[in-house]
């Protein structure tokens, strides 16, 4: 069923009794051309683009829980492409372009809202760094504007401009950045892929991979062995565990990242704002809650829950930036498990095993990358070679020295 104003009106007159389910909850067949391990945003997007761009429809997405139960539903829903380095900028810009056309492409309302993303700066040196970043973006055809203090004040008068420690000197604005309803991204891609014939198999955990003569022949699952010509891993958070089944060791550590939502309030913050003197980012959902997050907790974790010291740290940052937040109660917090890679950038590549492909290492930048990640991974799988947009996201770059380290932090995954 195609969603449109006409289907909406027609259903309204029929008491909404005629809606069909959005996607088929499939049971796995014995054999597929391509199996995607992981039914998160990236895995579902990959399946969609495999079917749409490459005509591969004999495809299964295997998810150990239910779709959208992982990081695609655990982020702060921000999209942007304000990257500095050549390997990153064109990829994330392509992602933003795909976001802009996503709802028409998948015929699903994902509430893509280009409300702008402002990165605040608090010192002259930081202004220089942000001006450089903004110029790098413009050279790559990405929109960016350097705002002075008064321009920021017009957009966000509630900031603590004269904070003694962290005065607001201005901000780098990407007007096309914004937010997207993350659950709808999982559901929309699932529905679009399913309509093209992709099987989405929930509660089907991959427990092993079968490799013969250096070539993949299928995966063992809790629902039995499934044969496949090609297999793609898109299980960020658990990439190391999945890759270990194929005997691969990755340049990745798993860390927990917390996110929070406050009680609902009237329209207050109509953009996305990030604190420049720490790591705090906030936007307001359409329900009215402020959605915010910060840094990872810093130690390896697979627990999907964080600890209190970081909660306290985050609240301090929020109040330093927007003092009125101290009057707000926060409702919920949750944790997601991040693939923290050794240079802070992802991996979309072939592996040494024929027919096995890897999509991993998203750190906490995975959500905004969802469309381009799926698009590039689908290309890499279908053509058996990377697209030029993901050509830099190689698995062997750690050995060859071609790292993509936006923060210049070195091989310290908990600091990226």
């Amino acid at each position, binding site marked *: 069923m195609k969603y449109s104003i006409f289907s909406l009106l027609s259903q309204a007159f029929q008491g909404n009794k005629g809606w069909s389910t959005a996607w088929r909850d499939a049971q796995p067949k014995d054999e597929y051309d391509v199996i995607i391990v992981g039914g998160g945003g990236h895995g579902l997007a990959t399946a969609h683009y495999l079917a749409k761009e490459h005509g591969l429809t004999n495809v299964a997405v295997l998810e150990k829980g239910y779709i959208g139960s992982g990081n695609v539903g655990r982020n702060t829903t921000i999209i942007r492409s304000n990257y500095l380095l050549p390997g990153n900028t064109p990829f994330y810009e392509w992602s933003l372009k795909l976001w802009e056309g996503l709802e028409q492409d998948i015929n699903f309302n994902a509430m893509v809202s280009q409300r702008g993303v402002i990165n605040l700066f608090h010192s002259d040196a930081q202004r220089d760094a942000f001006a450089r970043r903004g110029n790098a973006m413009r050279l790559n055809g990405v929109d960016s504007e350097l705002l002075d203090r008064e321009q920021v004040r017009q957009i966000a008068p509630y900031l603590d401009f004269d904070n003694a420690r962290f005065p607001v000197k201005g901000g780098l604005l990407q007007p096309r950045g914004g937010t997207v309803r993350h659950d709808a991204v999982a559901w929309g891609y699932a529905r679009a892929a399913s309509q093209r014939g992709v099987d989405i198999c929930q509660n089907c955990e991959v427990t092993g991979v079968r490799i013969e003569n250096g070539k993949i022949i299928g995966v063992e699952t809790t629902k039995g062995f499934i044969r496949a010509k090609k297999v793609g891993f898109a299980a960020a958070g658990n990439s190391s565990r999945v890759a270990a089944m194929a005997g691969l060791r*990755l340049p990745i*550590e*798993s860390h927990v990242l917390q996110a929070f939502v406050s009680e609902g309030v009237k329209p207050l913050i109509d953009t996305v704002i990030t604190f420049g003197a720490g790591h705090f980012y906030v936007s307001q959902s359409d329900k009215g809650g402020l959605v915010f997050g910060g840094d990872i907790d*810093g130690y*390896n*974790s697979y627990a999907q829950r964080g*600890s209190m010291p970081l909660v306290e740290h985050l609240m301090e940052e929020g109040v330093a930036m927007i003092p009125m937040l101290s009057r707000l109660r926060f409702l919920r917090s949750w944790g997601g498990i991040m693939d923290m890679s050794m240079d802070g950038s992802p991996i979309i590549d072939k592996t040494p095993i024929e027919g096995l492909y890897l999509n991993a290492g998203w750190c906490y930048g995975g959500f905004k990358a969802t469309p381009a990640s799926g698009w590039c991974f689908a290309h890499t799988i279908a053509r058996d070679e990377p697209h030029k947009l993901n050509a830099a996201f190689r698995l062997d770059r750690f050995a060859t020295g071609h790292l993509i380290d936006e923060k210049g932090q070195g091989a310290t995954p908990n600091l990226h």
Partner: protein
Amino acid sequence: MRLNCPYCGTRSVNEFVPLGSASPKRPTLAEPIERWIDYVYFRDNIAGEHDEYFYHAMGCRSWLIVTRNTVTHEIIGTKIAREVAA
């Protein structure tokens, strides 16, 4: 999460700085480049009992090796890194 420092007793994790896995062993300069690449970049990334370095920055300033379950956050044991290295 609270860590049991052998010198200071049970303290909030807030006082410690984590450094990650304590398993990689630094190769000697004579060893091949592959060993160095593995040491610097590649990790087992264990889901389960994990030996890891913590620095007691706001306490006795000792480097510790904490054995912790990365799935449950249960602390299994704490040792002083210097004594393990000796």
